[in-house]
């Protein structure tokens, strides 16, 4: 990957990550969010968070499958954008939807599997976002890697959270689940070494 390509991809990531927020703000401004704007805002923010979280798992998959290491640098911005949207999603839920009514929120979360897995995922993503501050990451040293493996359960929780959101099985969260599965399968050590051997024999 040439330096130029890296810069282009980086720019693409920044533009691509901010664009949905801009589009959402525009739709809100134009009053195009339908009869229940809160629901649309919350759902879309969640959907962007999940998409970015899955994208943050792609660079490592690319390295394993194609042996390209230059994409590793994109993990951090993608992961941080995922957290950013997750934070906005949670804020929409707590603030726009529940108007900070703590008593109602507590009931909503603890009576609900859907909200519980969402909360678990958000807690993990918060830890990951904080520990990706460079100075802190450096100070953590080796355990950093172990901590950041918890992105896998977080992604799993987020997919569950999305699947459980509907009365019936919807295709898009299932598709997200399938993508997550693929991204995780290549990380299983025997699969990784199999792929490495296959790449060398090419």
């Amino acid at each position, binding site marked *: 990957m040439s330096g130029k390509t890296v810069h282009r991809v980086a720019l693409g990531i920044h533009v691509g990550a901010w664009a949905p927020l801009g589009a959402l703000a525009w739709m809100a401004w134009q009053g195009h969010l339908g*009869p229940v704007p*809160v629901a649309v805002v919350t759902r879309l923010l969640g959907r962007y968070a999940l998409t970015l979280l899955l994208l943050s798992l792609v660079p490592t998959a690319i390295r394993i499958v194609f042996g390209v290491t230059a994409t590793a640098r994109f993990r951090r911005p993608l992961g941080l954008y995922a957290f950013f949207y997750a934070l906005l999603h949670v804020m929409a839920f707590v603030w726009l939807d529940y108007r900070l009514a703590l008593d109602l929120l507590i009931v*909503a979360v603890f009576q*609900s599997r*859907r*909200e519980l897995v969402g909360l678990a995922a958000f807690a993990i993503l918060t830890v990951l976002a904080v520990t990706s501050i460079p100075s802190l990451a450096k100070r953590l040293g080796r355990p950093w890697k172990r901590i950041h493996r918890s992105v896998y359960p977080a992604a799993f929780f987020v997919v569950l959270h999305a699947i*459980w959101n509907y*009365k019936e099985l*919807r295709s898009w969260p299932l598709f997200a689940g399938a993508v997550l599965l693929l991204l995780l399968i290549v990380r299983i050590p025997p699969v990784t070494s199999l792929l490495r051997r296959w790449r060398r024999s090419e």
Partner: protein
Amino acid sequence: MKKIDSREITPEHVYLNRRQLIRGMGALAAASLLGGCAPQSGPEATPSPPAPAASPGTSMPTAVAERFDARLTPLEDVAGYNNFYEFTLSKTKVAELAEDFETSPWQIRVGGLVDNPMTLDLEDIMAFEQEERIYRMRCVEAWSMVIPWRGFPLSALLERVEPSAEAQFVRFETLEDREQMPGLKSNVLDWPYVEGLRLDEAMHDLTILATGLYGRDLPPQNGAPVRLVVPWKYGFKSIKSIVKIELVDEMPVSSWMEAAPNEYGFYANVNPDVPHPRWSQATERVIGTGERRKTELFNGYEEEVAQLYEGMDLEEYF
């Protein structure tokens, strides 16, 4: 000071003028209703409670008619946010997809365990004394609307077909027309959509067949030309675009029970203390207001319907 969105006021204001007319008609309906009585239909069925005395000019208990008056959900939301899976899973796209839905001619077959089965045309349905009912509709997805329906008690129709002694449940079916309903291609539910009520629930005065809302005929997306409205149950019980009503002796299996028996029960009574297995039912979004309210037991109709479930464990019979 609380800002009031003009969007919320206009339809109500226009609508309230119309209501004066309908009120007058309703008074007549009430007179005939009070004379009516539920048929004795089997040992399981309890007769419907006596219709509470109507105050002058209204066709139903003041408490039911008036308590929502000032908080009607704007028509554009009532007709723009719909669950009607026969068309699409998207609540905001139903209206467009159902725009050309053909509801005339329309027939409803009423049969099963009855002495007097019949096939009703839409004209026969409209011939029942129509009255206005303002009900809160609470969706299992934790949102609610307040809708001024036009319709008539289901009991009026059931009395006409004379349920036989064995009849204990009522089973309803929605139209299944693949040419008009693109959503039928999806297999999220088994088609046709089926719902059911216990006979005493069906005979209850609050249970109506609705033919209109906001003083006009039902928009297609709201279940034209005729739908059930059972206000103390989650919205999915209030089956739309009905083509078949059958009196049966066994509890019908509804489409949602079939799809996910551990999540959707036969009763589906609104209950803030019995969460859906995946989400809380403690509160609900009030459509059109951006607010949330606490969900009430039996959707606020406890006084009217609690006796139907006396001695029943509402967690077991969810």
